[in-house]
């Protein structure tokens, strides 16, 4: 592995033509929402800047992020970015294994001190000293902290690394914890989704390796370019929502007509992601387009904000799951009954005590 190699050198060596390279720059610049001049900037950066090493680690996860990543729509994107990363470390897809693989970590940590990007897929469980996830003979949380020490920035891939996802769902027996709650002293970029969209992942990687800094992040630490709008805002079924036309049951006429899935519990109105614009599998479709509501997989604690198929979220503080309307109606019922009873007692008391009370009219 050559330290001074540029991104361009790597892809040229792999037989990618200059023409394909320029197309890749334009496409990525466009998907990042940066305009046509940025394509040239990006090309120049990739040609001249030394390649930024990326270490890709796996904690408690299902590898759906990696699976999504290698299916990036533009074939060049995955070839380019993936080879760039796998040169260093990704225990799932790299050729090396065992001690040989682990040595790469130590080598990168030392050689690129403070310069490499640490991409984390999954999260560390903290319970029992991290014993629920052993990686290379020691708890993943220790490996994560060790590699984070000298990283320039950390990418938290997917909902696991960003929010905790399914392994952190209640009651979270392993105490699975998102990256930003474990690593507190490094810039962390969250790329949530279960999995995140491939083009979003490659876009983020390309931005960081190209410009040597993190893209602009929102309040929750997500790149603004992909996570500043809700699925709902760009959904092609939105006109049916505004018109008040909903799928009422899964197999009804409205479902066939492609009406809004709001009543079927679609979480599009509370989910920030690029699914309704970038879509999946090379722009073929996304969940709502295939007739199923969004389950909000890129949102914090989405497993515990269910049910997936109802609009109102469960409130679990009352032992059994109820939604806001059930809790509210129960409160109104109680108070209403209380008021009615109080009024009745007041009336009875007034009738029964009236004679002795007339003295005030004197």
């Amino acid at each position, binding site marked *: 592995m050559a330290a001074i190699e540029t991104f361009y050198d790597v892809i040229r060596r792999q037989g990618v033509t200059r023409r394909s390279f320029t197309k890749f720059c334009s496409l990525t610049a466009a998907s990042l929402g940066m305009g046509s001049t940025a394509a040239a900037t990006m090309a120049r950066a990739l040609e001249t800047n030394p390649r930024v090493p990326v270490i890709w680690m796996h904690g408690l996860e299902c590898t759906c992020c990696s699976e999504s990543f290698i299916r990036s729509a533009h074939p060049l994107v995955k070839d380019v970015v993936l080879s760039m990363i796998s040169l260093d470390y990704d225990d799932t897809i790299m050729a090396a294994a065992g001690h040989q693989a682990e040595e790469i970590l130590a080598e990168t940590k030392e050689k690129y001190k403070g310069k490499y990007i640490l991409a984390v897929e999954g999260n560390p469980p903290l319970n029992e000293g991290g014993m629920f996830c052993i990686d290379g003979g020691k708890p993943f949380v220790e490996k994560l902290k060790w590699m984070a020490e000298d990283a320039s920035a950390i990418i938290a891939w997917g909902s696991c690394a960003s929010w905790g996802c399914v392994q952190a769902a209640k009651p979270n027996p392993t105490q699975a914890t998102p990256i930003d709650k474990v690593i507190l002293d490094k810039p962390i970029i969250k790329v949530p989704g279960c999995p995140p969209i491939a083009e979003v992942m490659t876009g983020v990687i390309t931005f960081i390796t190209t410009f040597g800094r993190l893209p602009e992040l929102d309040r929750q630490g997500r790149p603004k370019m992909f996570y500043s709008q809700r699925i709902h805002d760009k959904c092609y079924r939105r*006109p049916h929502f505004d018109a008040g036309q909903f799928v009422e049951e899964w197999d009804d006429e409205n479902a066939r007509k492609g009406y809004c899935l*709001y009543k079927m519990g679609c979480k599009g109105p*509370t989910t920030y992601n690029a699914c309704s614009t970038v879509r999946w599998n090379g722009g073929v479709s996304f969940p709502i387009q295939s007739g199923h509501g969004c389950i909000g997989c890129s*949102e914090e604690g989405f497993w515990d*904000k269910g049910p997936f198929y109802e*609009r109102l979220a469960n409130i679990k503080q009352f032992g059994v799951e109820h939604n806001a309307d059930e809790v509210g109606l129960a*409160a109104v019922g109680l108070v209403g009954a209380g008021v009615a009873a109080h*009024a009745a007692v007041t009336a009875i008391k007034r009738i029964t005590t009236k004679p002795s009370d007339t003295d005030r009219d004197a």
Partner: protein
Amino acid sequence: MTEATQVPGVLDSHGERAAPLQTVYVYEAPVRLWHWVNALAIVVLATTGYFIASPLPSTPGEASANFLMGYIRFAHFASGYVLAVGLLGRIYWAFVGNAYARQIFTLPLWNPKWVWGVLYELRWYLFLVKRPQKYVGHNPLAHFSMFFFMLLLTFMVVTGFALYSEGAGRDSWQYKLFGWVFAIWPNSQDVHTWHHLGMWGIVVFVIIHVYAAVREDIMSRQSLISSMVSGERLFRDEYES
């Protein structure tokens, strides 16, 4: 009749004089106006809000010919603005209005007489005392609940604008001012749930508020309902018994 006209005071058709009763000007015009505008806004907000969470049955026809959900949401947002501007105006009036105008913004917990008043009114509601005290402004118990209602209104305005900012966008002033709500609840589904629960809290308040106003108007020998129209509190007894 000629004899009766010489008597000062109010006459009935038989020329009998009505007793002059003591009135105090409590609620100034802006307070009364705010009360009723606020009440109207709350009715619209609660109704439209409920239908935003649980929409009406689907409209027939083409989507291009319908805008039902759009109108419901517009009504919700518009009355939300009315309520928010009203709340700001009401806070302003707390500073420039009379002493009764700022009552519901403070909680004089350190005032033993006031605390005694809260307990006394509680006992009145538990039928443990025969007569309520008479107050020019809010009675201490009403004062206590109004204070929390104002907090609830503020909560609804804050969460409401935070939710509004989701549609208005990350660059909107709504997001700049109220986006911090999403630092407390990163998943906006939670903000929706809290906002929805807040609506039920307001419904519960309205039930108690209307009941207490009607009951006290009858039972405590002082005007409540008409006071919010005329601004004057009428004490129906000529003297304190």
